[in-house]
């Protein structure tokens, strides 16, 4: 590894030399086709933009906020920023004003790169409030013609300036690239966390590169991979995957046309490598289930039958048991009739390796994909560790664990049961937040905040957030995440929040999957007007009831969890929304916040005999407007086994 370039600017230059112009570095679906750029194009674009930035006065260690959907230009901007020794600060594109304000202000950004008018507008609001923000650069000029400001510049104009600047200062670019050192900051990734303000995780070139290479080596990934870049650039997963790994391996990153067309674009590209949080996998599964329910009777039968076969086979394969001949034959038939076409339709036919990361995934969901023949594996990591802690190895899969520690990672479990680790990707600290850094990083050991243990196979098993794992009043272990994930296997349940800490029994909030349930309701001619209305239909309660019953049954089979069966539930009147702070941008439930906000509901769940509860809710629209609605939520009891 020593002779390999360790800073991303150098890796980029290296790639541009190494790979022929016919090999695509990055593609973007635009104007109906996949516009491809070679590594040389990549470098040229980056250089022009970097020089343009330099012309605008971008200095070493300057920060640049980057916000928008995955566009090549944004990746180029990120790289250009690094080339000048600056630090990119990617932001969640759906972040609301308050969050953006905090991060941009906190990270002291002088520059910002926005994708389009929407993002530019957000940044322009900030500019009034944060004078430090000097320039806003936008990629897509549509709708921006009336904005006439010196500090608002088009991406291509910056590049034009860069070309001019480059002519005048021919050595400037290489000089600044060479001045970037592996241990310089390469990115500040803000994690929203489930509590408090976002914290800026400082990572260096070396860390990102090491971890990226570690991943590549683990799965033997090479330059011929195709990946889809559609996850938020602010998420460390995307950064490692679409930027770190892509540059280190030289494989191709594909940017979809728009968020609406991801599934279609993915099918076209046929990625060989996927990295996605569980919610993506859940969503896809939900879509599959909806479509199957809409399909002809005979197809439904076939699907369910063969999925059962596949599940059986996969269970045996995971546990390394021989598969009976009959099942093997059935599996092959199923592969022809169902699995292969299904996988192809999902755009996953060419997948070599797929990861679910960022959250625990429900074992049923996990097994669903694996049983289709997709090599889905679990990965455990955090922004603070450059996502690099542990992951499953081919042939050594366990649906309940996240695999053995990755090479170069040490893991230990604290007395309190918290997972601590030392990873080459461990961060330098939180930006401008030494207290938090000190809390998390102790002697090089990173406190993950997750409760877990090592299994006999040497796999790390994560139970839940350490602070969330608790006991019911009767002393039964209560791991809300575990129950919620089980619930989320249902296509009708989008989110669930389980309660039970120090209570007599477990009760849950259910956030229904509006699309799936609406579809289900329409097929049964159930009229409804809105999410709230739909959620309170008795038929929907029945529908969810069955799903909970299923979970209860499965829980009852585990003696340790038998008592944590769900006793009561209610369907929420609104979807849990990161804009309202109920979940994070990566869709982690912010338990404490919910407990505060919906305390009344929780109390109702634990008040015997109470069958409904009145709520008043404030909705926040995209543009920040709010409106209040009132509703009576039903509460239902569930049988337990």
């Amino acid at each position, binding site marked *: 590894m020593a002779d390999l370039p360790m800073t991303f600017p150098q890796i980029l230059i290296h790639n541009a030399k190494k790979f022929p112009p016919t090999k*695509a570095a990055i*593609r973007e679906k635009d104007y*109906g*086709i*996949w*516009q*491809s750029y070679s590594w040389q194009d990549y470098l040229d674009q980056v250089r022009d933009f970097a020089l343009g930035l330099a012309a605008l006065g971008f200095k070493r260690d300057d920060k640049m906020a980057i916000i928008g959907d995955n566009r090549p230009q944004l990746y180029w901007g990120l790289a250009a920023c690094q080339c000048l020794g600056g630090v990119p600060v990617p932001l969640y594109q759906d972040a609301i004003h308050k969050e953006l304000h905090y991060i941009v202000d906190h990270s002291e950004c002088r520059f910002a790169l926005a994708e389009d008018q929407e993002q530019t507008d957000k940044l322009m609001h900030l500019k009034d409030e944060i004078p430090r923000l000097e320039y806003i650069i936008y990629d897509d000029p549509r709708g921006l013609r009336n904005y006439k400001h010196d500090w608002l510049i088009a991406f291509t104009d910056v590049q034009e300036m860069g070309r001019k600047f480059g002519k005048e200062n021919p050595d400037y670019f290489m000089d600044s690239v060479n001045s970037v050192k592996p241990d310089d900051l390469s990115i500040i990734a803000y994690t929203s966390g489930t509590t408090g303000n976002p914290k800026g995780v400082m990572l260096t070139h070396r860390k990102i590169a090491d971890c990226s290479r570690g991943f590549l080596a683990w799965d033997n990934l090479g330059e011929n991979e*195709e990946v889809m870049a559609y996850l938020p650039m602010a998420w460390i997963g995307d950064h490692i995957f679409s930027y770190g790994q892509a540059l280190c391996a030289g494989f191709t990153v594909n940017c979809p046309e728009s968020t609406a067309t991801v599934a279609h674009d993915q*099918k*076209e*590209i*046929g990625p060989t490598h996927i990295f996605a949080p569980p919610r993506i996998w859940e969503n896809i599964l939900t879509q*599959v289930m909806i*479509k*199957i329910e*809409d*399909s*002809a009777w005979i*197809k439904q039968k*076939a*699907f369910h039958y063969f999925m059962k076969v596949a599940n059986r086979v996969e269970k045996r394969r995971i546990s390394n048991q021989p598969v009976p001949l009959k099942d093997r034959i059935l599996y092959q038939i199923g592969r*022809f*009739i*169902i699995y*292969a*076409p*299904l*996988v*192809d*339709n*999902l*755009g*996953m*036919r*060419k997948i070599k390796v797929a990861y679910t990361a960022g959250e625990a995934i429900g074992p049923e969901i996990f097994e669903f994909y694996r049983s289709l023949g997709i090599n889905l594996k679990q990965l455990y990591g955090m922004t603070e560790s450059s996502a690099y802690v542990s992951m499953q190895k081919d042939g050594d899969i366990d649906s309940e664990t996240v695999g053995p520690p990755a090479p170069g990672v040490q893991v230990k479990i604290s007395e309190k049961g918290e997972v601590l680790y030392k990873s080459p990707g461990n961060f330098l600290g939180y930006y401008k937040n030494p207290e938090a850094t000190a809390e998390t990083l102790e002697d090089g050991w990173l406190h993950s905040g997750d409760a877990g243990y090592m299994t006999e196979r040497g796999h790390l098993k994560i139970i839940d957030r350490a602070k969330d794992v608790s006991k019911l009043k009767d002393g039964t272990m209560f791991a809300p995440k575990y129950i919620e994930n089980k619930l989320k296997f249902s296509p009708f349940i989008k989110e669930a929040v389980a309660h039970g800490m120090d209570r007599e029994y477990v009760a849950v909030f259910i956030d229904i999957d509006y699309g799936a349930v609406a579809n289900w309701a329409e097929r049964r001619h159930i009229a409804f007007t809105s999410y709230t209305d739909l959620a309170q239909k008795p038929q929907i309660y029945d529908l969810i009831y069955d799903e909970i019953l299923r979970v209860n049954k499965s829980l009852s089979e585990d003696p340790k969890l038998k008592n944590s069966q769900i006793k009561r539930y209610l369907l929420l009147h609104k979807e849990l929304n990161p804009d309202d702070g109920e979940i994070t941008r990566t869709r982690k439930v912010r338990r404490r916040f919910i407990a505060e906000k919906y305390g009344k509901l929780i109390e109702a769940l634990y008040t015997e005999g109470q069958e409904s509860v009145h709520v008043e809710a404030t909705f926040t629209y995209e543009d920040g407007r709010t409106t209040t609605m009132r509703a009576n939520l039903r509460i239902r009891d569930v049988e337990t086994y």
Partner: protein
Amino acid sequence: MFYRECGNFKDSYASDMAIFPIPLDRWGFTVMLFLAFVVIPLFASEYLITNIIIPFYCFALSAFGLNILAGYAGQISIGHAAFMAVGAYSSFILYGRYGIPLIPSILGAGVVTAAVGTFFGLPSLRIKGFYLAIATLASQFIIEWVIVHVEWISGGVFGTIQAPEMYIFGWPINTAVRKYFLALCMMVVFMTFGKNLVRGQMGRNWMAIRDIDYAAEIIGVNLYRDKLIAFAVSTFYAGIAGALLCFCYVGAANIEEFNVMTSFALMGMIIIGGLGTVLGSFFGAGFFVTLPILINHSLAAFMDVVPSDILSNIEAIIFGGLIVLFLIVEPYGMARLWHTIKDKLRLWPFPY
């Protein structure tokens, strides 16, 4: 179900606009070509080649010609068989009487037919729909009459010209397989040309005229020119097909071959096959050329049981019944049915 489209992406407009953008279709097409160029000549019986496949190719070509006119440009013509006759006679005259080489003769026949067709297309500039359709019958009857009455064309009172021996560069086209290759090559070449036309600007203009003619004109489509071009191209195909049919199959140009019933059958081919599709021309031709023969073959088994008179009528009943049945199953033609099945397979196991 069989389609594997994952990873089939287009990074240039050229590949996006290819005739077969889906890999499996490309494969299927290659297999069909292999069948047509290798398997059939090697393994099919002479009977099959001469009686079913050659006429099938010729009628497919002719049906495609009519499809250009009726299916793409929306100008229904039910006098199309007459144009095949023009092609047949003119190719025989060019080749047999004037000694022009075979291929140029056939092409020349196409050009002659196109000229005649354009002339008969003139009413389309004013008349539309069924009125035009019926008016095109005029071309059928006038051409028939001219061929029968002008001895220079029909070669005397017999009204029939025998096919001369065929040579291409001195190489005799005298066996079934050689004739087959002549028909096949012409068919493939012109089908390709035709497909290119209908997917290009001309095809779009035609479809625009078919869908809403005034809007097309307002957008800048030259209605008159493009309608006449449709007639010219369409009848060009009819001419080529007529020439091939007579050269490679019937062996004589005979006006009775191309009577109004053949015209109706051609119309039937494109409707049953699928209007405005290339594939439909093949399906339709297959339906109308092979099905009666197939039924006839099948019924031969009952000759001892059922009186022959009734048997022959049963053939008509089955054929008519199948037409109705196919229309009920898929009014937009077999090509649409094929596409529906294909789409289902592409999305399998999903419904959409």
